[in-house]
């Protein structure tokens, strides 16, 4: 097991160069528009956090090794080689100051998908050993223990029994042939146990078969965050094997951001073949239930509330309308933030920033962008659909002494679920 070296990093970067990357580097005119779209720049005014700057080493590798003139200049010794020191400096720019939120990609006038480029840049950083301490720990725990926060099966089983006691609904583990296989993120298991309860009640009310695989219940994928496809492949293949073994039709990605990207969008490309099953985010499934009339709710929340769009789910995931449809079932006073939907502002903690202790202070500063948005809107409650966003927003609100509850959308829906007489058990008795 050879250790990470600069050469392995450069080689990883060489693998990443493709037509879009070449097009993007040929198009960037250094116009600076991506900076003001990135919350890490707007809240710090540090020009080094300009998104396109985060891929400068990758640009030089492309120029020096994938263009004729670049090769000639390199042969004549006129080009600046990529060094370990430089990659070490870039750790701050490509990890601490980037949540892979994709907003820069939406504003770049020449159409550069800068998020796509930073994701590839991280491949080189990982292979050359320039990744944040926090992410290395998380990845190691994810691979070795099964969850980046060290959550093991017994903890999940305990929570399941707890939910069963409360709701009387049995949490089906390892049920072969179930229609849905639920995945959980460690944060939900640790911080938001209500999520499992909500899901079980909803599925029970909808009368849909579901299960949880004891071999692969973890949805998060530190490999994606650290930017190593090899590690990501290792983690996602566990889910695929479990799903195939249980022959489920759909795997549900929980209220988490990057998990959805990891499984649905990158999964098939990581393992190199299309999945024999669908992958849907929990909100997609709930919206389908709504359409099929299987999600009946009663009563309304009268509090003035808004929705925080998790970047990986909405802008990078395409689940845009579903949260609105679901929210309008239970909210009368739902207002949108100025920048919402596919142009929302990140909470500041995605893409591995929350797992990266070096970025703690930067993460809190980045949250100010979300604070400004909320201040403009004066709402009572904030709803979102990603555990990582919830923790970050809760911490941010607390630090800024703003008293506002942060509620998970699934959880809220479950509270308004119409009790089906058949089961006779409702949550209030």
């Amino acid at each position, binding site marked *: 097991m050879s250790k990470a070296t600069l050469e392995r990093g450069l080689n990883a970067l060489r693998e990443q160069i493709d037509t*879009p990357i070449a097009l993007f580097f040929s198009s960037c*005119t*250094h*116009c600076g*528009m991506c900076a*003001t779209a990135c919350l890490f720049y707007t809240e710090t005014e540090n020009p080094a956090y300009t998104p396109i700057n985060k891929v400068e080493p990758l640009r030089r590798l492309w120029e020096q090794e994938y263009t004729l003139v670049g090769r000639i200049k390199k042969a004549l010794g006129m080009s600046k080689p990529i060094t370990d020191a430089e990659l070490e400096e870039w750790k701050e720019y490509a990890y601490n100051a980037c949540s892979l939120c994709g907003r820069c990609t939406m504003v770049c*006038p020449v*159409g550069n998908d800068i998020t796509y480029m930073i994701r590839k840049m991280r491949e080189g950083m990982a292979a050359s050993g320039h990744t944040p301490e926090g992410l290395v720990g998380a990845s190691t725990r994810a691979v070795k223990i099964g969850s980046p926060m060290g959550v093991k099966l017994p903890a999940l089983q305990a929570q399941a029994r707890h939910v069963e006691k409360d709701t009387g609904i049995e949490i089906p583990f390892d049920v072969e042939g179930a229609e849905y296989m639920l995945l959980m993120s460690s944060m939900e298991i640790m911080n938001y146990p209500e999520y499992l309860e909500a899901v079980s009640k909803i599925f029970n009310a909808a009368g849909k078969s579901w299960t949880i695989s004891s071999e692969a219940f973890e949805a998060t994928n530190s490999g994606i965050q650290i930017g190593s496809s090899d590690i990501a492949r290792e983690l996602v293949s566990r889910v695929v094997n479990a799903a195939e073994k249980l022959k489920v039709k759909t795997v549900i990605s929980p209220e988490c951001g990057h998990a959805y990207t990891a499984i649905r969008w990158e999964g098939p*490309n990581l393992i190199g073949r299309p999945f024999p099953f669908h992958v849907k985010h929990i909100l997609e499934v709930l919206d389908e239930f709504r359409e099929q009339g299987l999600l009946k709710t009663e009563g309304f929340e009268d509090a003035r509330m808004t929705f925080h769009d998790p970047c990986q789910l909405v802008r*990078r995931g395409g689940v845009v309308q579903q949260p609105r449809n679901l929210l309008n079932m239970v909210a009368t006073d739902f207002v949108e933030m100025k920048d919402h939907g596919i142009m929302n502002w990140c909470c500041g903690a995605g893409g591995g920033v929350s797992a990266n202790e070096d970025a703690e202070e930067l993460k809190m500063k980045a949250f100010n962008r979300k604070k400004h948005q909320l201040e403009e809107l004066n709402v009572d409650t904030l709803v979102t659909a990603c555990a990582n966003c919830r923790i970050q927003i809760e911490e941010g609100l607390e630090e800024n002494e703003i008293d506002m509850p942060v509620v998970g959308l699934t959880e809220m829906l479950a509270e308004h679920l119409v009790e089906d007489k058949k089961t006779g058990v409702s949550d209030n008795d």
Partner: protein
Amino acid sequence: MNEVDFLLWVRGPGLAIASIIFVLGMTVKMFEIFMLGRKKNLAELRGSGIKEGFRTIITRSGHVDTYSTRNTRFTHIAGWVFHIGLFTAIFLLAPHIEVFKSIVGFAWPALPTPIIDFATVIAMITMLAMLFHRITNPVLKYLSTGQDFVVWALTFLPLLTGYMAYHHLFFSYTLVLGLHILSVCLLLVFFPFTKLTHAVTLFFARWYNGMMAGEKGVQQ
């Protein structure tokens, strides 16, 4: 080599060499880019994204980020004004249309020269403002390399010499017309090896941007 010989050289061999290098350079670039290819996306997509790709080619020009600062508004407006001025001067001036007629064989109606003159002046003023912005704005100052300023000059000179030629400023028309064509030759020669390639690659880049989003159902 008096001014007339200079003009004759630059109108003939000069332009020939510049055109060869320009076309050669751009063709090599296209091959270098498109032969790299892109792995097929095996995920279950919400659509092919092809239509969204073409949509983005158009919509991205008009896109103004809601959180725009003075700088981004300036860059956006200046970008529009400059490019309109530049393309008006290049494609709607009668003598230029003659140049294109000699290349592609067909021509199109021209605008009166005072309007082109006005467009050129607007383009030049905007470029000067953009240069000032590039020097003073912290982000641009950080990002800018020598090439950004060389490319600025390569784009500004044809406008300046074209304006001088039209107004017979300072030097004889023969000399200034020669300088004008020389500046265009320089622009063509450096075009494929600098960020000027954005003029061509941005359409493909925007297409990929929109397509990759469209695959996931995000409409721009």
